[in-house]
């Protein structure tokens, strides 16, 4: 089937198998490889992207379901190189990443979290990121990154 999805402002139209997952469409057809795959049970959140502004696990959405909709991935968050999204800047400043594999999904989930709750408490950040697993950081600095991006105090 033919699927057209607006990804980071550009429409990508491709002929794909019906069962093609959105994450594969983004990675293979659109060639955007920041979005990662960490599991096969919708458990890890590494594949999180924004679908019409809402965060979704793109390993659980068919490309067909996203047909005609807009997707934002990590690559679409920032403008040119110097112009980082506050969360991208904050993840770096607060050392909110180590191996970086969870990071694209973590940042996208955080974007959505802050949209719904611009000044979360630390516990609200933790609860809000429950579906995004990180094996490296122990989450402390991820929480700091989200607090930093929301203009709140961090705990170093």
């Amino acid at each position, binding site marked *: 089937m033919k699927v057209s999805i607006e990804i980071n402002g550009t429409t990508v139209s491709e002929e794909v198998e019906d*069962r093609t997952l959105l994450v594969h469409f983004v990675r293979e057809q659109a060639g955007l490889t920041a979005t990662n795959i960490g*599991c096969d049970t919708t458990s*890890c959140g590494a594949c999180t992207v924004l679908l019409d502004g809402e965060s979704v696990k793109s390993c659980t959405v068919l490309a067909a379901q996203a047909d005609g909709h807009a997707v934002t991935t990590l690559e679409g968050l920032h403008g040119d190189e110097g112009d980082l999204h506050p969360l991208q800047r904050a*993840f770096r400043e607060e050392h909110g990443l180590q191996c*970086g594999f969870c990071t694209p999904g973590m940042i996208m989930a955080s974007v959505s979290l802050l949209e719904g709750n611009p000044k979360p408490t630390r516990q609200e950040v933790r609860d809000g990121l429950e579906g995004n697993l990180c094996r490296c950081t122990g*989450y402390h600095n991820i929480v700091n990154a989200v607090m930093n991006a929301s203009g709140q105090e961090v705990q170093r």
Partner: protein
Amino acid sequence: MSIVGTRVVRIEDHQLITRGGTYVEDLRVEALTGAVHAMFVRSPVAHARVTVDASAALDAPGVVAVYTAADLDLAPHKAGPVVEPWLADGVVRYVGEPVALVLTEERYQLADAAELVDVDYDPLDVVASIDAALTGETVLFPDQGTNVLQAGDGEFDDAAFAGCEVVLSHTILNQRVAPAPLEVRGAACAWGEDGRLTLWLSTQNAQISRATVAKGLGVEAADVRVVTPDVGGGFGAKIGTDPESVVLGWASKRSGRAIRWVETRSENLVSMTHGRAQQNTVTIGGRRDGTVLAFRLEVVQDAGAYPRTMFLPTLTELMATGVYHFPKVETSNRAVVTNTTPIAAYRGAGRPEATAAIERAMDLFAAEIGMDPAEVRRVNFIRPDEFPYSSPTGATYDTGEYAKALDQVLEAAGYADLRAEQARRREAGDPVALGLGLATYVEITGGDSGGESGKITVNPDGSVTAWTGSSPHGQGLDSTLAMLLSDQLGVPMDRITIRHGDTDEVPRAIGTFGSRSLQLGGSALRQAADQVIEQARALAADRLEASPDDLELSEGVFGVRGAPASGGVTWAQIAEQTDLTADVWFGDGSPTFPFGAHLAVVEVDTLTGKVVLKRIIACDDAGPVVNPLAFQGQRHGGLGQGAAQALLEVMNYDADGNPTTATLADYSFISAPELPDFELVDSETPTTRNLLGVKGIGEAATIGSTPAVHNAVVDALSHLGVRHLDMPTTPLRVWQALTEARKAN
């Protein structure tokens, strides 16, 4: 001013937060254009005779090839004393063992084709646990005659415990866990026209992978190039080179196609090596004043189906006595094979198991004599004036301040107040019990693993390129090494490039594991930089018509000491004129011994068994800190992973050897709401055993946090009659322990 010791944001991060890393699955290199996709068909049963018929699969859409053991013309390889087949050959010995390899043109054709590979499994008796292995009723490798494939039996003499007022014995299970890095295993490979194999591999050491793959394929090491792209975590499980890599290299040659392989998470959970899996029996004896007089540790390692790594139980033995000076010590180790996934290193690899055993034993002893666990530890610590300390099990500890680490943590935590609060709650019959758990630990880093390579070139424009044999996979080593070099050479960090993980660029190396990278890889680069400075100094002296001894290097300029007017010579000026390169091997592989103290505070709901980790206060002393940002990050990660083992993580099998935790829906990674903010206490005790005075930090916090959290949960229940419960301390297990204790009372 020196940047060493300051909080420097990582140079790695820009790429990672803007376009994501380039992990093996992200590679879009030319050599992989048109690559076929690979999937291993894996055994769904734990022990069976197998016959494979691939004919139906060969006709499936897009199938390029299906290979089985019958096709492979490779010499077999050894795992310990036995042969581990590349693909199951007549018998499978664990769920997840590779049986066949399927290659297809398109990724989505893989699963369809794999399903058509017709494998007949004729079940055999299963050995699914250490206990089952020890009975010897079923022997997995009949020619061995036993399931015990390693036995380092110590001399035991109960006389060791004579004179003790109290002697306690307990068997402590250190459960099997899955390292499960967030990036699963993956590889890509292609043979070039020059007859060389290039293998892109998600690994912790490209050079050892090259050696293993070349040997497996029966070719020269020079015929193989291994390249490590970004690696999404390893945790020890990506040290080794799994049989899959060799099979892929072979299949690429046989099929004449480039290949891409990425396993699924469910595959990863059953076929990447697991960690821990020890059953440790401790016997501890001493006086009622808290002095421990004798300690015995009997280690039994579940090695899994193929004993790929046999050093884990011996490392546990080596570190058996932890931070304590015990007059009499006895240890033994055995490793058995079972019909489960092979065991290998996982963050700490043998040391967490030692610490878990001794720290649980210290708490059991403290409870028995009615003394505060902090006090019992203090009585038995190795004192600062005893270093270097030769332990009874054969380790020589470099430096340590064990009592100081403990005191700092108790102070930061407000220990006395916490104990008072605990007493109040108990008095009031509060159903939510407070538990305090201590662990004081010492670990061995960079031990007996040889040295490491380091090479530096100053480029004609004055920028610097450095090649390290270390192989980071999230630790931020690029930044840490660049900081060290920037400091030493006076060249800004953004003019320094760190390269690693390509065997053509770095042919000699050992890689990253055992928290060795900074102390050995860093020392190698320090040595190389020293040599480059000496080369440059001589040349600068010529230009300045001064004696080399009178020159000083400051902010990248060689000038005459005390005579700024005479001008200076920059790196670029010298490098333009001559090749400035040093290539060294830092050969002092002597280990260092980081140490620390952790206190965990938990609340346990005695009605439901639910455990909430409220606080972790941690002192981890690994000597001087190069970058506090990366240092703290390593500690945070270790604390999280260590706590997860105590609370949640376990790789379970049923009696038939079926894994029951083979997806992330069943296998519990710890998530953000389950962890508290970490409270870190700083301490720096340098070592004399390398050029930087540093010790490793990659695993330390995992080692301390597991027993601290475990002890906290038991402590919370101690007033109700619970003395011990095994990890993970899940609600069900806590509730069962409480029910049993209530019955016993």
